[in-house]
């Protein structure tokens, strides 16, 4: 597993984490309030995302590659094409096979797919240009309950430990997944292989719980009482405030435009 952050010397990287966090959340918020079929507005949202990818020296290819993670969302919205509002039109696929689809549903599907895709891009841009610790500090400075921030921080920290553990377990399993002499491949039924994988997941779960208990004991040993020390809050600079205000205003205008441009 790799860290999401990509070191670059760009104006986007230098922005205060709070600015980026607020604008990214607002971007996702307004994007998802955009009505179905507001194509011009959606294209502008996409353009904004691509522009930030270029300004931050990450490149569009980098963002496109990572945004493939949005694919499962497409799948979830896919049935809309057939279950959308009437009327349903016939579509001939094979000479003797005709299916009915709903144009309104298709429009909705494409809108949802685009929104999911662009929202993921915004999240990718935020995490690739901002160190995770900075995002955590920003969350704390924005008065998110400290316990939440602690939980998110610890999860992030141990995600890497556990993913290393998974890698080592998979290595150990591959090492013993051999072919009998004279045979080309390994054997074992699918059911058995699935059961082994289940056992691995179970043992990982038990080990993670035990690790969390050890971590907690170690925290208590160092005086943890359920409250992490607050990080000092530096007020936002005037320039940062200006960037936030401009960004929010722009997003608001873009959203109003999307309401008008819906056919």
């Amino acid at each position: 597993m790799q860290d999401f952050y990509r070191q670059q010397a760009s104006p986007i990287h230098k922005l205060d984490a709070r600015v980026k966090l607020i604008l990214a959340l607002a971007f996702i918020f307004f994007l998802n309030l955009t009505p179905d079929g507001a194509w011009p507005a959606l294209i502008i949202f996409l353009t904004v995302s691509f522009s930030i990818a270029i300004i931050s020296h990450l490149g569009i290819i980098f963002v496109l590659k990572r945004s493939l993670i949005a694919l499962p969302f497409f799948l979830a919205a896919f049935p809309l094409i057939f279950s959308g509002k009437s009327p349903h039109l016939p579509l001939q696929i094979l000479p003797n096979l005709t299916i009915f689809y709903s144009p309104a549903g298709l429009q909705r599907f494409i809108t949802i797919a685009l929104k999911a895709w662009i929202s993921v891009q915004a999240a990718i841009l935020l995490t690739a240009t901002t160190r995770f610790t900075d995002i955590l500090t920003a969350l704390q400075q924005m008065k998110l309950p400290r316990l939440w921030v602690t939980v998110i921080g610890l999860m992030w920290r141990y995600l890497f430990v556990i993913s290393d553990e998974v890698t080592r377990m998979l290595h150990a399993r591959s090492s013993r997944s051999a072919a009998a002499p004279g045979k080309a491949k390994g054997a074992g039924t699918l059911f058995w292989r699935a059961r082994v994988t289940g056992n691995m997941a179970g043992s990982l779960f038990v080990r993670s719980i035990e690790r969390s208990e050890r971590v907690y004991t170690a925290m208590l040993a160092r005086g943890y009482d359920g409250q992490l020390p607050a990080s000092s809050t530096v007020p936002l600079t005037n320039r940062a405030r200006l960037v936030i205000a401009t960004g929010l205003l722009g997003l608001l205008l873009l959203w109003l435009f999307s309401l008008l441009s819906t056919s």
Partner: protein
Amino acid sequence: MAAIIEIKDLSFSYPDGKRALSGINLTVYSDEKIALIGANGAGKSTLFLHLNGLLNGEGQISVKSLPLIKKNLAQIRAVVGVVFQNPDDQLFSPTVFEDVAYGPLYQGLDQQTIRTRVERALCDVGLSGFSQRNPYHLSNGEKKRVAIASVLSMQPQILVLDEPTAGLDPRARRELIALLSELPQTMLIATHDLELARQLTPRTVLMNAGSIIADGSTDQILEDKSLLLEYGLL
């Protein structure tokens, strides 16, 4: 003696760019027992992960004259048995039996052969009668032995062990060394335990920062205190 593992000019960098191995040349002969010593981060474990194709660096490796390429992986993994440093990574089944039977089951052997192999392997490591226990609840030394049994049940010709004595109490360590000295396989052992090398392995290879610094008789290398001190082993 015939060469059983040949490594030629092996180099490897991790995806984050960290260079882990550079220009490794090593030949292991049949029935040899070799200690691989070196400080933490010297590249011992990385080298081991190459011996059965879990990592793919640049260079050539052949095992029993089979080049280590994707097509031969399944066969090579039957020849090279790797025992990992942390037994918990290796043991993932609810019972010791299932863990030791994993390799033979994967090979598609028949039930009777599997049962014989598991019993034999558990007997070899001195854990007969443990087959229905949960590996998670064993002591560290016992877990180590189960991990070794789970590899022995595949009847490999080469045993590769990553720090087998790390974290063991003196008695468990002594018993483990005795066990390893009785096993007939060709052995490659990564270790910080110089005493183990002295007792078990006539040949020692010293690694540092991804390269082999010295390769020779254990007595000679362990005699050279300044060498050991320089590379963080004393």
